[in-house]
Every structure is written in structure tokens, then in C-alpha cells.
């Protein structure tokens, strides 16, 4: 029994890591008031870039860095359209996803079926990885540890630092933040770029560590689960981790539960169903304020039309 639980958990954490990385970024972007439905597109561009650069340079670190950069570049398109041009964020995000799926397909064609010469190796934490049973949890690759470390760091930044207050105030009441001397546009740009960086990392995790391979459309809707998880987590890094592992766990478990008569496809719906429920639960105004749902989400900011 313990072996079963440990084996499910050790599969769950890597299965949830791409979701976690992506969600942490989207939480920050949405906290600044910008919804980015382009996560799927940024993630897949990260995946193909990470694979391509790792393939060409035989250097995983370069691949991961390039993937982050690709994510940032993609996010800048959305930032320009939604923050500078103030066009509809929903449409711009959808366009970004389409663009990412298209370009990655074309870019990755040459890599289909190619083995990666090097891949991100697991890091054996000294001493801890030798523990019986628990040792399994200390043999993940570096991106898994980074994603876990980022959770307390990003929570601290968000709630306990001045920068965090600035970020939240921009998503809450941009006009007031502007009056206090905050550069609303700059903060939103940075938050959206951080979202892009994290989505790029998530994509690289998939293509150079988790798979590791390039498969067209390999994110397979993970970007949309990130959008769902961002709401599910109520825009909070710690709950993002819980949610990411929960939904990662669902993906691991679906094949093991099938013999018990629980169809995998119905389990797959779960993240999206739960998200709709959460949306209903947080619809009450007083509750929204208490948990800090960014009040200015999806509202472009203009200094002239207040």
C-alpha cells in the first residue's frame, strides 16, 4: 500500500510540475490585471525552443534559458496588444495561443521522432535520496525543485514585500496606483513577461525533461488547465501548488482507476468542472474582495479615460 502511494506521489509531482510553473506565472500576470489566454501558445513555444536549442547545442541549460526567452518574447506580443493598445485581452490571448501552436508546429517538424542527445538528469540530493521509501522524493530533476522553491518565494514576494503590494494594487485599482506614482504599464508588462517566462520554462520541462521529446501539440491542453488552475488557486502561489499536484495526480491516477470502472475521460473533466464551481463560489463581491481577486482583471488601463 505504501509502495503504491509513494509510486503515485512520485509520478504526481513531475506530472504536476509543468502545470505548477505555468500557473505561478499566470497568477502573477492576472494579479496585475491582465488575463493571458495565450499560456498554451507560450508553453508550446517554450517546449519547441527548449528542445531545438538543447538538440543543437547539446546543452540542457542553454535549452531551458532559450525556452524562457521564447516565452517572454511571446508574452510581449500579448502585453503590447492588451496593455499598450488596450484591445480585448481575451481575443489577444486566443490569438497568441493559435500563433504559438502554428509556429511551434512548423519549427518542430524537423525534430519529430528525433532523440534528444542530452536530457535534464535527476538530481540526487545527498543523504536524503538514500532514505528508504522517502528517498524517491529526492531524485527529481532541478526544475521540479525550482518550481517547489518558487512557491514560498513568490508568496513572500506577493504578500510581504512592497513590490508585491505594488503588483496587487495595479490589479486592484490601477487609477489609485497611478495616483500614488506607480507606473501601471511597466508593472503590467513585467507581470505578463514573468508569466511568459514561467510558461516557457513549463514547456521546456515537458520537452527536455518529462517527455523528453518533441511531439507536435505536446502541451495537449496543459495551458488551458493552467488558466483553470489560476482561478482554482484563487490567485495564490501555495494553492497553485496544491491544485497543480491535484490535477497532475488526476492525470496519473486516471489509468490506474480505469479498472475500477472510473472512465479516464470523465476524470479529465474534473479540473474544468471544479474551476466552474470555484468561479461560482467566488462570484460574491465581499468574498472576492477578501480573497483578493484582482478587481481590474481584464480591464485595460488608460490615463486619459478613467
Amino acid at each position: 500500500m505504501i509502495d503504491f502511494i509513494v509510486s503515485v506521489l512520485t509520478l504526481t509531482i513531475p506530472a504536476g510540475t509543468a502545470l505548477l510553473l505555468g500557473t505561478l506565472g499566470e497568477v502573477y500576470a492576472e494579479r496585475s490585471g491582465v488575463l493571458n489566454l495565450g499560456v498554451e501558445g507560450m508553453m508550446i513555444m517554450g517546449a519547441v525552443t527548449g528542445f531545438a536549442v538543447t538538440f543543437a547545442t547539446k546543452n540542457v541549460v542553454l535549452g531551458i534559458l532559450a525556452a524562457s526567452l521564447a516565452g517572454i518574447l511571446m508574452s510581449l506580443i500579448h502585453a503590447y496588444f492588451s496593455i499598450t493598445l488596450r484591445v480585448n485581452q481575451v481575443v489577444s490571448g486566443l490569438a497568441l495561443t493559435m500563433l504559438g501552436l502554428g509556429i511551434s508546429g512548423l519549427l518542430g517538424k524537423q525534430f519529430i521522432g528525433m532523440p534528444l542527445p542530452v536530457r535534464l538528469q535527476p538530481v540526487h540530493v545527498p543523504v536524503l535520496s538514500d532514505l528508504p521509501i522517502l528517498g524517491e522524493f529526492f531524485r527529481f530533476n532541478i526544475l521540479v525543485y525550482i518550481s517547489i522553491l518558487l512557491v514560498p518565494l513568490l508568496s513572500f514576494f506577493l504578500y510581504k514585500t512592497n513590490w508585491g503590494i505594488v503588483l496587487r494594487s495595479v490589479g486592484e485599482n490601477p487609477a489609485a496606483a497611478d495616483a500614488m506614482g506607480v507606473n501601471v504599464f511597466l508593472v503590467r508588462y513585467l507581470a505578463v513577461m514573468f508569466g511568459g517566462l514561467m510558461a516557457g520554462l513549463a514547456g521546456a520541462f515537458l520537452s527536455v525533461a518529462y517527455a523528453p521529446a518533441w511531439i507536435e501539440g505536446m502541451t495537449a491542453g496543459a495551458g488551458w488547465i493552467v488558466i483553470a488552475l489560476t482561478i482554482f488557486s484563487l490567485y495564490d502561489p501555495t494553492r497553485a501548488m496544491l491544485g497543480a499536484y491535484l490535477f497532475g495526480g488526476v492525470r496519473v491516477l486516471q489509468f490506474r482507476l480505469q479498472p475500477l470502472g472510473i472512465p479516464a475521460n470523465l476524470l479529465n473533466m474534473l479540473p474544468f468542472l471544479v474551476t466552474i464551481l470555484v468561479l461560482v463560489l467566488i462570484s460574491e463581491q465581499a468574498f472576492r474582495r477578501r480573497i483578493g481577486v484582482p478587481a481590474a482583471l481584464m480591464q485595460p488601463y488608460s490615463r486619459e479615460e478613467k
Partner: protein
Amino acid sequence: MSVKVRIERRLEVSRTTQIGSILLSLLLSFVVIAVIFSFLGVNPLNAYRRILIGGFGSLYGLSESVAKSIPLLLAGAGLALSFKARVYNIGAEGQILLGAIVGGGIGLAWPDLPRGLLLPLMFLGGFLGGALWALIPALLKTRFRVDEVLTSLMLVYIASDLVRYLVYGPWRGAEQRGFPYSSPFSLSAQLPHLGTTRIHYPTLIVALLLTLAIYILLYYTKLGYEIRVVGENPAAGRYAGMSVERVILFVLVLSGGLAGLAGVGEVAGIHARLGPPEGISPGYGFTAIIVAWLARLNPLLTVLTAFFMGGLLVGGDAIQTALNLPSATIFIFNGVILFFIIAAEYLTNYRVKVEVVK
């Protein structure tokens, strides 16, 4: 002396400016896509030529473009209506699938009914399926003020999994040997085609009539007037005694129903069975967003934009086989065109004013 650049909102946008902006945004899209193609090692002129020939250059290509424009028109005209009320139903893809499930389910359940009865029943069921699927975000929006963008989007993925569950599970045909397909539809559950083409003309006629009806509704009826006022300024609409909730429910349910009809058309007119969701609709519900936006939300123009996007899809298939490009290539067109449409909307609604201050 300094130069001051100001951006101000335009009050009136003329029809010529609108059409000009559509054409200009398409032209600029093709320039940018050509640049992207060149970077990725694809000769853009060659690709464009293949797309043009593939989608519009032969009777066969044209007929395929028309066939693909049918679901795009049904879903796109409904979305134009919905977006006009500033109700952002982006879940047409899910509503198409529900239409396919309910309409296809009726076809599978009563295969022996006469065609003249079964096909109308399937369309009716498909309309209701799509409409009910859209009623969920509509009620959540009117009752709980939950944003329809996220709920309608989540419902797309729930609908996909529902289709997958059905065709891998209870609805899998006995003779399909493990493949995720239902049994084939009986002849009376299949739509007739125009000659040897894949144009299932009953759906096309329904689509054209409904598009015209939506145009008349939007511009010549009281309800249409309310939809436009609520879209421009909900507060003003409420002040004038209009029911914003009723408008939201109406546009979502109608656009969902139209998408549902598109789903029936695909399963009864093209596939003649139910299969995996990406087979029933390879993203028609999302492409329909472009159809609506490219038409600047004018229902009559969606006839043209649906045909254009349908042709682009067929052309995309052509470059896939002729130039050995992945099927996702066509998404580059979708993404870039969508970006340029919203940028053009910005440029036509605002203008840049340069003042010289002494």
C-alpha cells in the same frame, strides 16, 4: 517648442473605413506571415500560391471551401450577434460538440425513422444541445455575475471529454474493433450532398437563412436594437428600461444553438458517425471567432469571411500535402489575422493626433 502626440477616440467610424481596415489588416497579416514563413524556411510565395490554388483554384477546392464554411458561418454569425452585445461567448467549439452529441445521438437512436422526419429531429436536438450548453454560462452570468469568457471556455474541454467518453465507451460501435467511433449513421440520418461534392446543402441553406434572420433581427427589430444598446452601453440600456439579463440569455442561447446546428451538419453531412472531438470539429468554434471579428461583427459579412476562412483551411490542407508541412501551420494564419483584426479595430476607433506646442 515640443511635439505632443495624443491618441483620442473617434466618434464615428464610416463604412468605408471599416471595409478598408478589414482589407488592410488582411494584407498586413499576409506580409507578416510571409516573413514568419521565410524565417522558418518555407517559401512564402510558393505557399500562398498553393493555398490559393488549393482553396479557390479549382471546382473541387471551391466546393471543399464551401463545405468547410458551413460550420464556420453557423457558428460565426451567432458569435457576431453575441459579441455585438459584448457577451464574449468563446465556447462555440464546445457548443458544436454538444450539437453533434445530441443530434448524432438522435440519429443513432432512431436510425429507421424516415429521413424527412429524422434529419429535422436531429437538427432540432442539436440546436437544443448547443443552446443548453451555452445556457450554462448564460445563467451563471445573469444569476451569479460569473464572467462568461472563462466558463464558456472551460465547457469546451468538458464537452471534448464528454465526446471522448461516449465514443470510447457506451456509444462505441460494436463493429469498430477498438477504434473510437460510433456505428455509422443509417442513410436516413445522413444529409444529402450537392452532386459529388461534400457540400451538405440543407445545412448551407439553413445557415444562409439564419444569417439573414440574425441581420434583420439585429438591425430591424426592437430586440436587436436592445442588443446593440446593451453592447454599446449597458448602463444606458438599463436606464432605458431594457433587461440586460434577457439580452445576455438570448444572445448566448441563440449563438450556442447555431453552433449546435453546425455540429449536426458535420456529423450528419461529413462524417456520418460520431468520432473523437478533434475529428468532429478541428477548431471550427475558435475559427468562428475570427470569422465574426473579421466581419466586424456584421452578420451579412460573415458569409464572406466564413467562405474566406473556409478556403484558408482547405488551402492549409493543400500546403500540408504539397509542401509536407504540419497541419498546425494554418494556426499561424489564424493567430496573425486575429492580431491584425484587433489592432485594426484599435486604429479605426482611435486616431493619433500630433500637436505642435510652442
